[in-house]
């Protein structure tokens, strides 16, 4: 390992920006605030590029110990940073996409009153995310883990005066916390058995242990608990419920945190812990199952949503499922590859959706959109690139990454055709709902309110999806004549991300990406050997499978074209004929309501009855109040001694004297 003294600058530059904007931003002009935020984030990005340029696989991994932290017997943890191939990929993605979204936010949030707060929080998020990615031990990673959860809470509930936003922020934080509980127990197990949380020490110790093929052992337990944490952070079943609600936050937040970076932290953590998972086949299987089921489940919900951001949110959950499926079958580098391309196209999708929302005055319901390609050509173009990418059309980025995952799901020793089949079905559904979104938004006639800021009509016609009330409180300084294109400060990042979505997958051609990451996933060497063997043997199979997945994408496109372009009256009739099934899907299978009945209500009721009334009021308050009452009663009775009557005083004295004499006699007699 080589020492790199510049590693610590990368996370701490955005922290400085956050602190400056946080403490002084209220008094600065918006230009100064923007400059501070962009400079510090850009500096982090520049540093990341420099590190990438100077990176060489021979001297990797790099490390840097910033400061001592904990010392307890043989256990020690320091503030240390670490850079290997995996961290480098994540670093570039986080800083690059983060910087683009910072630029976009300057335009999107310009008219907001809390502008300085927003830019401060964005920089703060960057600090925590970079700490997570560059950590050298699990505890520093946990700092970043918790910190991004905090930043997420702050940013989701950014418009905190709105009840639904504040509630969504709380929900995200609490559900994350449940996942963190699992993560923490995994850390405790590691401390107990490996006496260290440092990556190198832990993985070296793990690699000496045998694979646990029979039943549940230590590594399986650690793996499962880490997966609990990842499920919370990366919105997998059963802890995904916070992500759709998180759309209450401003769109740049959804793009940065809930598409490109924070939710991928779980995938990164699982990939980082590959040594543990590879020796715990049961845990890997659980990861794969959860990933696949989540992918399919979320995709089915996405087809019935009417809010554009909700569709993208469920799409994120679904794509994250793909990444976990990849990790679960042992194709960690494929999962990271998809993480990278997903950051590009999902970030682009959210930013473009934000541009659309901004352009039509805050409307988010797709039923009120339509025909917008005429008014917003650049947005339309970039969003189309993203839509075709996510559907998996070659030669765009996600085709390579998604195809890689599906192939590995089929061919890897831990994989099976079941995963592959469900993955293909999910790809078909993904293509369908994305093109549904595309057609409903950009084609047909404009169904929204024209001319004046006509928020009343849009609010009146919005019953089902509850995030509807988001005639987003980002004010419009300019008068609204109708849908219009966004300013170039917002369109620039869209274009750059579109280019990346186009070419981003080409790094995976010929397995170069996998080779690059191979030193991190050491048994990946065996994987690659197996793959080359499998390639020569099943090259035909691979081509066949690739054609099937492309076919699924095309099928989805055709279905969406039919239902939403050619015969737009069909969807309503189909929905009516499906009746209850459609209702269930459009209400997200009533999962939120189920959780409310199963967990939330008993918890609140129990807490109210037992803890509040029982303990707090009955025991603690009662103890204090009753002791005060008792003191009052005692003194109430004792004060009758002070009667003012001379003779009663004399009586008391005589009695007391008798007691003293009796005591003295008794002592003398003894």
């Amino acid at each position, binding site marked *: 390992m080589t020492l790199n003294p510049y590693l610590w600058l990368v996370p701490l530059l955005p922290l400085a920006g956050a602190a400056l904007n946080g403490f002084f931003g209220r008094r600065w002009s918006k230009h100064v605030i923007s400059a501070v935020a962009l400079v510090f984030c850009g500096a982090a990005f520049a540093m990341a590029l420099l590190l990438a340029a100077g990176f060489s696989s021979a001297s990797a991994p790099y490390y840097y110990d910033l400061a001592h932290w904990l010392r307890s017997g043989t256990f020690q943890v320091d503030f240390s940073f670490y850079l290997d191939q995996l961290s480098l990929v994540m670093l570039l993605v986080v800083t690059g996409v983060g910087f683009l979204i910072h630029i976009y936010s300057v335009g999107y949030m310009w008219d907001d009153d809390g502008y300085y707060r927003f830019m401060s929080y964005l920089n703060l998020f960057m600090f925590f995310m970079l700490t997570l990615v560059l950590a050298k031990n699990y505890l520093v990673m946990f700092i970043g883990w918790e910190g991004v959860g905090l930043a997420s809470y702050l940013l989701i509930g950014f418009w905190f005066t709105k009840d639904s936003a504040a509630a969504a922020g709380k929900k995200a934080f609490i559900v994350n916390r449940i996942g963190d509980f699992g993560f923490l127990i995994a850390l405790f197990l590691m401390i107990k058995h490996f006496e260290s949380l440092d990556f190198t020490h832990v993985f070296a110790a793990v690699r000496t242990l045998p694979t646990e093929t029979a039943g549940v052992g230590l590594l399986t337990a650690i793996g499962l608990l880490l997966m609990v944490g990842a499920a919370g952070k990366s919105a997998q079943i059963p802890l995904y419920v916070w992500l759709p609600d998180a759309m209450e936050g401003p769109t740049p937040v959804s793009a940065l945190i809930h598409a490109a970076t924070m939710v991928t932290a779980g995938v990164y953590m699982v990939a980082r812990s590959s040594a543990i998972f590879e020796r715990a086949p049961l845990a890997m299987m659980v990861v794969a199952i959860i990933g696949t089921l989540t992918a399919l489940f979320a995709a089915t919900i996405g087809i019935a949503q009417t809010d554009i951001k909700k569709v993208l949110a469920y799409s994120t959950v679904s794509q994250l499922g793909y990444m976990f499926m990849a990790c679960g079958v042992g194709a960690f580098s494929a999962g990271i590859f998809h993480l990278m391309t997903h950051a590009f196209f999902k970030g682009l999708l959210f930013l473009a959706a934000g541009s659309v929302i901004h352009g039509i005055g805050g409307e988010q319901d797709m039923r009120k959109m339509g025909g917008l390609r005429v008014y917003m050509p650049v947005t339309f173009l970039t969003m189309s690139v993203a839509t075709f990418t996510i559907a998996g059309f070659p030669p765009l980025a996600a085709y390579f990454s998604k195809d890689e995952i599906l192939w590995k799901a089929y061919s890897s020793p831990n994989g099976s055709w079941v995963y592959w089949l469900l993955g293909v079905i999910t790809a078909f559904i993904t293509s369908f709902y994305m093109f549904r979104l595309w057609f409903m938004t950009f084609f047909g006639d404009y169904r929204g309110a024209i001319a004046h800021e006509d928020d009343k009509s849009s609010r009146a016609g919005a019953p089902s999806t509850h995030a509807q009330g988001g005639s987003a409180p980002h004010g419009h300084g300019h008068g609204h004549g109708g849908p219009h294109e966004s300013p170039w400060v917002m369109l620039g990042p869209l274009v750059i991300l579109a280019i990346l979505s186009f070419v981003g997958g080409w790094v995976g051609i010929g397995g170069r990406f996998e080779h690059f990451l191979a030193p991190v996933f050491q048994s990946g060497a065996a994987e690659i050997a197996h793959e080359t063997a499998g390639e020569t043997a099943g090259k035909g199979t691979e081509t066949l499978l690739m054609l099937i997945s492309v076919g699924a994408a095309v099928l989805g496109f055709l279905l969406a074209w039919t239902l939403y372009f050619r015969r737009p009256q069909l969807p309503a009739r189909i929905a009516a004929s499906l009746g209850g099934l459609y209702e269930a899907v459009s209400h997200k299978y009533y999962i939120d309501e189920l959780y409310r009945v199963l967990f939330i209500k008993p918890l609140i009721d129990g807490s109210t009855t037992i803890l509040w009334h029982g303990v707090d009021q009955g025991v603690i308050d009662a103890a204090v109040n009753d002791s005060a009452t008792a003191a009052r009663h005692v003194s109430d009775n004792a004060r009758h001694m002070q009667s003012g009557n001379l*003779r009663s005083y004399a*009586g008391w004295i*005589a009695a007391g004297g*008798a007691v003293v*004499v009796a005591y003295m*006699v008794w002592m003398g007699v003894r």
Partner: protein
Amino acid sequence: MLHLILFLFFGAICVAGAVNLLVQSHPINSALSLIVVMASLAAEYLLLGAEFVAAVQVIVYAGAIMVLFLITIMLLNAGKEEHTKGSRVATLIGVPGVAIGAVLVAWTLVGRLSTTHSVSIGALWGAPNDIARLLFRDFLLPFEVTSVLILIAIMGAVVLASRPEAIARRHHSTAPPQESRELVATGKDH
């Protein structure tokens, strides 16, 4: 033998006087009973050989203090005691307490101590010059302090018992006429 008879005789008078003090309802009668007690006590002192103390008892106690009591009783025209609602505590707790304490002390002391020496009339050992030697040598400081104490008592008694107008008249010489009229007025409110 003679000693015992004399002791019992004067002791009986003593106790009778004490009980009479409790029983009488008019304070004058109680005061006179107390004088009887003091006189008999003086005789008891003589039996114990304390001639100086006996003399002082009669002169100071019976002669000065009790006269003071009698003057006050007659000054205030104290009449028979009325029966007012007393204190339950005093009777319920105090009296038994006293009884118990007394019984305990008596039980402790009686039967433990030996006899006293008897004295003969001519050879009383509590002579004034012996006591004076003690007072002015070993106990000089307490002696002087008691004289200061008496001085303070005199001053206090004078101030406490004087009428408010008397105080006002003393101030009147220094204060302007307006104030004295008010002070006099307040005095008349009684």
